[in-house]
């Protein structure tokens, strides 16, 4: 065990709305370890790390770096002291290129005055190559998929060569292969003497790669453990305070009629690239069809065309026999479509509105919530209070703005809203991203319940574990095409799936055609 290099003592943080996010928390790390920080949604992990990185100021407590007392008043101070952080909600500038984002704040210069863009590109490319990330550094961030954005975030922190690297859920959108790759690098860093703080809700990662774990609950630290001394079950019990079942039990699906019919769907994006290439499949009620694939292989476009965010051609997508190309999103939703979007902060919520206002965005105009000209405020309060309770959204009251929620709780708001309408078709893009183990269990169970209540579910996820566990059948996407279809998810292995996802293998057209049911 190395020596302690950083210690946070008695940290108390009260947000302006009176929420106590950290309550006399002690946290310390030793040189050269990978230290996991886990806890339920809203436990105060991000807050603690934001304090360490200078984004928030604590009311009480002190931070010692190498035994020296340090007051971290801004990220700049943190960076100067060798602390780097990867935020989960992206801290990227959309209109700038990947390379520009990576070098931002420590730009290479030509002479004294000018920006050396060529050098920046080379630096970014080298870095990406070194970590085996496949990124076009000249692309604009606004055009790249979430998974790539995540990689850019990681590269940003790595470029600065932080001694202490904080990673706030970096793996939520990575494939197992990419996660593996990342950890290889992290271990190299660790061997070079860097120290890593790692936040994740994926306990097997924690168990696999980390040396020690600090567990947080309700703003307090529940203690520090050596990873080898605790099992995944122990960790989740310490986090949640009860036993958590990590796998969902579900009966065999009873699929009935086709609800969603996608036929020969092609989508060309702004740059003239075929993001979707002649895709056909069907989803029936009573089944969950999983879509596996590495981010950026057309999943986002697929989801967005089905849910109406992107327009598609005539007779390409039919829901219960209706051509959706002529329908607006409103009409689609009225047909019974729900949608959990990939990017919760952009599409999923209006962060400055209250939880209540966010929870009714798909039902506000329904008869139940209206009394003639006016909305039925009492009814709205009742339904939202119920949802907050059901989905265990951690907040003071539903009148609190969404912005003040922790990442996982924001996700719960989205999920609660989209589930509550008991949709005919649910298009779920990574529904449990960033959600803690306890809540994940709950949401997965709910999803299966929805299925059993005859909803059709299209589940997109980069979390192989999740797709494999939840889906009844599965398709794999690669470069805008469907490359494989498995009627029964139980019959495949993760490794096999990985080969399809990386485009190494491809099924015959007949095999893939199985998902059309005609």
């Amino acid at each position: 065990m190395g020596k302690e290099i950083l210690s946070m003592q008695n940290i108390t943080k009260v947000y302006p709305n009176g929420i106590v996010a950290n309550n006399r928390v002690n946290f310390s790390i030793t040189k050269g370890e990978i230290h996991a920080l886990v806890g339920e949604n809203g436990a105060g992990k991000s807050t603690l790390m934001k304090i360490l990185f200078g984004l928030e100021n604590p009311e009480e407590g002190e931070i010692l770096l190498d035994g020296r007392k340090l007051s971290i008043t801004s990220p700049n101070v943190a960076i100067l002291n060798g602390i780097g952080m990867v935020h989960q909600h992206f801290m990227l500038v959309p209109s700038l290129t990947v390379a520009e984002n990576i070098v931002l704040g420590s730009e290479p210069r030509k002479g004294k005055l000018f920006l050396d863009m060529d050098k920046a590109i080379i630096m970014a490319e080298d870095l990406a190559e070194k970590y085996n990330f496949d990124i076009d550094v000249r692309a604009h961030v606004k055009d790249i998929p979430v998974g790539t954005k995540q990689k850019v975030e990681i590269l940003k922190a790595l470029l600065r060569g932080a001694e202490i690297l904080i990673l706030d859920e970096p793996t939520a959108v990575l494939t197992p292969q990419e996660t593996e790759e990342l950890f290889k690098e992290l271990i190299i860093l660790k061997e070079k003497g860097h120290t890593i703080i790692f936040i994740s809700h994926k306990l097997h990662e924690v168990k696999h790669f980390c040396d020690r774990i600090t567990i947080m609950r309700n703003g307090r630290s529940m203690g520090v453990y050596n990873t080898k001394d605790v099992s995944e079950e122990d960790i989740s019990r310490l986090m949640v305070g009860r036993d958590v079942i990590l796998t969902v039990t579900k009966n065999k699906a009873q699929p009935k009629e086709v609800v969603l019919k996608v036929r020969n769907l092609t989508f060309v994006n702004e740059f003239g690239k075929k993001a979707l290439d002649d895709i056909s499949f069907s989803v029936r009620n009573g089944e969950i069809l999983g879509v596996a694939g590495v981010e950026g292989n057309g999943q986002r476009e697929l989801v967005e065309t089905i849910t109406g965010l992107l327009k598609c051609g005539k007779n390409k997508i039919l829901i219960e026999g209706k051509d959706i190309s002529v329908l607006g999103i409103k009409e689609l939703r009225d047909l019974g479509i729900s949608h959990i979007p990939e990017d919760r902060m952009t599409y999923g919520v209006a962060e400055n509105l209250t939880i209540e206002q966010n929870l009714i965005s798909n039902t506000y105009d329904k008869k139940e919530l209206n009394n003639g000209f006016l909305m039925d405020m009492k009814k709205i309060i009742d339904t939202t209070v119920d949802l907050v309770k059901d989905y265990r959204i951690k907040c003071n009251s539903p009148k609190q703005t969404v912005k003040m929620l922790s990442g996982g709780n924001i996700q719960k708001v989205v999920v609660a809203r989209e589930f509550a309408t008991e949709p005919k078709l649910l298009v779920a893009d990574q529904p449990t991203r960033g959600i803690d183990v306890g809540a994940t269990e709950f949401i997965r169970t709910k999803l299966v319940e929805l299925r059993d209540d005859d909803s059709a579910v299209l589940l997109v996820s980069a979390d192989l574990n999740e797709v494999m566990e939840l889906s009844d059948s599965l398709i794999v996407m690669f470069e805008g095409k469907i490359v494989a279809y498995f009627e029964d998810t139980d019959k495949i292995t993760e490794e096999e799936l990985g080969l399809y996802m990386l485009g190494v293998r491809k099924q015959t057209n007949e095999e893939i055609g199985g998902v059309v049911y005609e």
Partner: protein
Amino acid sequence: MNQLIDIIFSASFGYAVIRVTTPILFAALGSLIADRAGVINIALEGTMLVSALTGVAISAYTQSAWIGLLAAMIAGGLVGLLLAYFSLNLKTDIVLSGIAINLMASGGTVFVLYLIAKDRGISSSLPSLVLPKIQLPLIDQIPVIGAIFSNHNVLTYASLIAVLIVYIFLYKTPLGLKVRAVGENPDAADSVGISVIRVQYFALITSGVLAGMGGAYMSMGYVSWFAKNMTAGRGFIALAAEAMGGASPVGTFLTSLLFGFADALSNNLQSLSVPAEFIQTIPYIATIVGLVIYASRKTAQINKIKQQEK
């Protein structure tokens, strides 16, 4: 109609377009820098007024037009600083801060004018100076071109150079990159150690300096005195020009020029038999039409891509 064509194709008209464009261009560039840093500067109008007065007062006092210009730029920068203080430190809504500064500038300039010139309307009693005009060596010789482009006020050329400088600054320097990052996602900039507030201070002050040059041009080039409320809405036109130019330096330059063109046209058209009120609307209608064409071209491009999919 022939008369109209004669007017438009005369060299003096081309010359007038450039002359009319100058103050708008300066202020629009000021608006651009602030906008790119995410801090909308509504106070351009007031800034121009303050600088126009400062230039006159200081040039009269020192008997140096250049010191007057410098003072005008400093004054503009100070107004920018004030706006920054209000909006970034006191956290007053920036639009409201801007409106308040305009209010204060319109009253304050008259107040100061009265103190120094004993006049509530115009500074003509002060022996203020104007900035020189510049004969462009070779271009001067070319027939029509020379008449249009040569012999403008030094600040007119400065405004054109400013377009280039702003362009280089924004896209080719580290600070420019920071400005763009701060404007688009301050959290992101903050997270890589950029001091958002400092960048925004810088942007507002620079914005003020640029608007200040526009103000100096008004009182030390365009005309040779300061008069109450002499900017007459040019600060707002500049805001419009910048927004219409898509917040890019070249776009802003073109839209400022478009506005200058329309304005010059309306100044020249009164000899035709159209009611004055109609002619006075020309610059504004031209701006709206220009805006729609510009914006609809963008949507058309997107539609075209969508067409291809089908």
